[in-house]
């Protein structure tokens, strides 16, 4: 099993950290992982994206242009990456701020209203975990327990009191994905 993922949105939305948590979860599940960010001026206020690969065998290229799954958090990224999903693949997006919806018919398109739901729950910061939950509902490549273990590993100890809130967001994301 090899899953090739692009996560893209605005800098500051937690795109890179979502990818990092996913990569860590893969390590917890004894998989090979790769996390390659866009870096440089793109990251300051503009778009940010990260390519994450999880595999049960050695990963060849960390650089990819076609993906099994695209996780999209803003319009620019949707415009840029809709065509990069492999036929039969998954496009998951948060519809906050999306005016031109994806139009491909040869891929599976899913929506998660994570921005709105996280605001309703009073914890907008965990919105990215909700999106991750939505993704894992569609592609259960790592277990919730391993995501939390990965999160614990990637968070400094002073933030460990936030683990429960993150787990709740992850599970809520699994429930609301459409």
């Amino acid at each position, binding site marked *: 099993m090899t899953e090739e993922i692009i996560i893209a949105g605005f800098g500051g939305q937690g795109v890179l950290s979502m990818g990092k948590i996913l990569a860590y979860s893969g390590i917890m599940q004894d998989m090979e992982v790769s996390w390659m960010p866009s*870096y440089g001026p793109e990251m300051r206020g503009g778009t940010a994206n990260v390519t994450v690969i999880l595999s049960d065998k050695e990963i060849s290229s*960390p650089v990819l*242009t076609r993906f099994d799954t695209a996780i999209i958090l803003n319009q620019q990224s949707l415009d840029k990456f809709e065509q990069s999903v492999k036929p039969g693949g998954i496009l998951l997006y948060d519809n906050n701020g999306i005016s031109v919806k994806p139009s491909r018919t040869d891929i599976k398109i899913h929506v998660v209203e994570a921005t709105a739901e996280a605001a309703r729950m009073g914890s907008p910061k965990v919105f990215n975990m909700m999106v991750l939950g939505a993704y894992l509902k569609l592609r259960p490549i790592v277990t919730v327990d391993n995501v939390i273990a990965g999160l614990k590993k990637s968070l400094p100890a002073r933030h460990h009191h936030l683990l429960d809130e993150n787990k709740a967001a992850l599970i809520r994301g699994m429930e609301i994905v459409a």
Partner: protein
Amino acid sequence: MSEIRLMKGNEAIAEAAIRAGCDAYFGYPITPQSEVMEYLMAERPEKRTGMIVLQAESEVAAINMVFGAAAAGKRVMTSSSSPGISLKLEGISYIAGADLPCVILNVARGGPGLGTIQPAQSDYFQAVKGGGHGDYHMLVLAPASVQEMADHMPLAFDLAFKYRTPVMILSDGVIGQTMEKVKLFDQMPRSTEVPQWAVCGNAGRKNRIITSLDLDPVKKEQQNLALQAKYQQMRENEVRYEKYLCDDADYLMVAYGASARIAKKSIEYAREKGIKVGLLRPITLFPFPSAVIAELAKKMKGILSVEMSAGQMVEDVLLATRQTPQVPVKHFGRYGGVVHSPEEIFEAFLKHFNLG
């Protein structure tokens, strides 16, 4: 016990430097390798092992601090990215000329000039052909994964001391910035041994002189001959490479560093279509694995050299294959900061050998 972590290439090599018993790091920040010094500073290695980490006032100052510490027999390193390496070249030539060991990391970015901060492999000539003035070489290692970024660190120090030579680890922005799983080796002790040539106070013994200057050309020529003999030893003993799917291959790709990883993916595409392609990945760029490429070339229908440059390593591939002129050798690469995709490599491969 070895320890598994998720790290960027830049972080892994910094951690590996501490664990390899490095005595001192002198550097100056530049994208895409600033995490090296950031990581070292945050780790406080002066508390862990006694290693010194110092941000110099410039790249030129940093390499001359390396020169001084190397002359004192210390395991010492610096790191930079392309424009910063150009600034260090005068110092590197002096270090090579003075027969001193050190490790220099280049996390290469697009050029020429100030260029761009995105990845490139256009410093190949600079790394393997000398770069600075005079007839010298560095031994050049080319890691292609975060794991190798870590593993090449102690290897680089061992080779630097074995040959009393500057060793360059030539990486790129892709490998430096990508996070992968890395198994870290255990902490090695810092060496307490003082090499027989080191200048570190001459009380009670004859003085030792470390210099790259000799105004007597006959003596200077002798010293040059000794340098060349050393490079010949490296060619005979230190060639390292990885062969991937070469046994049944009709075509060969040659690529190092990030390009080798991307090329492996394009080879998957080729094999899905029934085209048998293999990869020869040089791990040492100097000495270059010429003999193994020459041998492989005999059974190939074509060779594609893939690098993020306008075509530098391809010259060494051409030299290596001069006994098989009937085998076409082609080059493909995006450069100036653009990273080629597996699809682009595959399409170029099909086009070059009329397979599409």
